[in-house]
């Protein structure tokens, strides 16, 4: 990676409504093969009560970023640089005891696979009640009642009886509902949902997504929603951040990113995605090549080895030598000029999308 003396984009200082702000985050892991730079100079903000969708392919660093927010990485092999501020509290240097007070209370997480994320040894009700007892000092009885109430809220039929069941007695969709109940039991300010519906069937996925949206309205939670599915993002998010090889390449509101995308990688994602309303005569346009190895990330723009628009950049070498920066607001990390991005999208990309 080119050494970045100037940090990539300094989003405006945390405003009043800012819940979480991540500044120039670098995360790397020591492995047998070398150092994996999983996240590379990432900055973003999440406003209270809004949903930030993070989209990217496997290995783009989207999950690692959010594990780091909760301090769930293994400190023995991980180096974290940069700042993660939750309502002004620095999390990267926070002690374990401080993080413990936050987890499940102010910050909660929903994982992809509810069967491995729930403990098979305890009843569902007990697992939901536990964080409530710990953080709110509630009695066993009160916490159990709260768990039953939450299960009812997320749509488990007959919650009083089902709270006594073990996770294996629940179906996939119900387990994910139980996970949501557990995450929301302490009324968190921030909810991190890491591919929460990827393991579910489409009809169940639709139920869960709508449920999350409705509950967010009720609880006013800020959500970071991680997925690889642009359709899900379009449905859920207010703002989108597109990640590639450990960094953000484009950000903006849902409408901005999906209707007038600026980055060649975003164009590639849209072009390669089969849609129900797409023109059938037009073949899918895959992005050539494969995602880069994070052991030896490409120099300059991480997307340059797969980019088909490099030759339009005035000084082509810039793509190879200089990593383009992404500002705090609507924008994309690409050396093409704003005018070029606009015309290429309107003239070449949009017609193909139909």
């Amino acid at each position, binding site marked *: 990676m080119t050494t970045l003396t100037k940090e990539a984009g300094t989003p405006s200082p945390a405003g009043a409504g800012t819940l979480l702000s991540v500044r120039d985050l670098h995360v790397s892991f020591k492995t047998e093969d070398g150092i994996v730079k999983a996240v590379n100079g990432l900055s973003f903000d999440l406003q209270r009560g809004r949903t930030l969708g993070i989209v990217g392919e496997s290995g783009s660093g989207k999950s690692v970023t959010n594990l780091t927010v909760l301090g769930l990485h293994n400190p023995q092999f991980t180096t974290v640089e940069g700042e993660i501020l939750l309502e002004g509290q620095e999390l990267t240097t926070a002690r374990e005891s401080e993080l413990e007070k936050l987890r499940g209370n102010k910050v909660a997480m929903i994982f992809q696979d509810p069967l491995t994320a729930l403990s098979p040894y305890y009843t569902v009700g007990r697992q939901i009640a536990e964080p409530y007892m710990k953080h709110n000092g509630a009695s066993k009885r009160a916490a159990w009642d709260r768990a039953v109430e939450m299960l009812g809220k997320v749509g488990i039929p007959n919650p009083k009886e089902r709270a006594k069941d073990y996770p294996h007695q629940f179906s996939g969709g119900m387990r994910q509902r139980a996970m949501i109940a557990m995450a929301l039991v302490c009324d968190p300010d921030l909810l991190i949902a890491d591919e929460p519906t990827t393991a579910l*069937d489409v009809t169940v*996925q639709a139920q869960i997504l709508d449920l999350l949206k409705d509950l967010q309205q009720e609880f006013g939670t800020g959500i970071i929603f991680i997925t690889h599915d642009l359709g899900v993002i379009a449905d859920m998010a207010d703002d989108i951040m597109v990640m590639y090889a450990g960094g953000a390449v484009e950000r903006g509101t849902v409408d901005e990113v999906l209707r007038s995308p600026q980055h060649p990688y975003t164009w590639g994602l849209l*072009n*390669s995605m089969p849609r129900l309303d797409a023109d059938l005569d037009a*073949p*899918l346009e895959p992005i050539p090549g494969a995602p880069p190895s994070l052991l030896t990330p490409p120099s300059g723009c991480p997307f340059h080895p797969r980019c088909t628009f490099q030759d339009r950049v005035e000084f082509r070498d810039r793509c190879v030598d200089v990593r383009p920066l992404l500002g705090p607001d609507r924008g994309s990390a690409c050396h093409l000029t704003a005018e070029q991005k606009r015309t290429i999208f309107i003239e070449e990309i949009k017609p193909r999308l139909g």
Partner: protein
Amino acid sequence: MKEDLVLPSPRETAEGAAREPLLDVSGLTKHFPVKGGFPIRRTVGHVQAVDGVDLTVHVGESFGLVGESGCGKSTTGRLITRLLEPTSGTISYRGQDISRASRKELAPIRSEIQMIFQDPYSSLNPRQTVGKIISNPMEINGIEPEGGREKRVRELLEIVGLNPEHFNRFPHEFSGGQRQRIGVARALALEPKLIVADEPVSALDVSIQAQVVNLLQKVQKELGIAFLFIAHDLAVVRHFSQRVAVMYLGKIIEVGDRDSIYTRPRHPYTHALLSAVPEVNLSDEDTGGRERIRLAGDVPSPISPPSGCRFRTRCWKAQDKCATEEPPLIQISGNRAGHLTACHFPEEPTIEARDEDIVLDPALAALEESED
């Protein structure tokens, strides 16, 4: 699903035979026994994975099979390739009944029906080189292509877009998308007439997925191979298949040409499936949108499926008749030929937004009620 069955003689050429059935499946059933009890373990029930499936795949056609997990689509694929023994029903390939054929009788047919698997990591032997993996089927079937097997392997690698020089490498040296290409090359090695592709792209990233879909499409069109394309992703199936069947709990509930299924579906479940697909609306103007249907709960257990129509427990139109009488798979008036639906009370053939959303999920309904 059984159209007038004029069985072609096996030697008939593929020429002008767009409607010639290649594979004809009728009444296909697979029940897996469930063992339980103590101290003597006995069969206590059956998972009715596939229960009376009829379908026809024509020469050179791509037939899509969609459904949610546990609906029996993969089992159907495995029955057709005879990786599993059917409980009952017939599978006829080019007019020859292969549902009970012995190993010996099957040998010549096995080379014509090939399979591509979902997981490119577990479907390739890690101890064999790519060259060995691809030439294995030729060896087993005693095929000596012109110029030798190695030359043929190189050709195949080139067809699927891999570097022919890599035939001495091992699977772990390739990425997921490349491995799936190796799987495709292996399936092509015997010049099959039918490929059963079981979720061939669902383990891959979007940008790679498109590469493999395009490759399969190229193979299908250029080599005229018929595909049974099994997937849960409705958009991918729409892209790849000319005809599509929708499965629910071991039965086909609707089948028809692509256009009919995706724009004029009649079965409530097809409506619910289509409305549940999250979509990116890329057009600038608001196009009214699609209907919104949110079912309640999950798919019931296939061990004791509901009586009558299997979808009735989650259906908003269900009446007493649905519980007592199983709806036959028939052509409903107004549908195109070949568009069959199994429903007593079919829906209007449109996917436009309704006046009122159908929300069956109790939690959702309650939350939305309180918002209004």
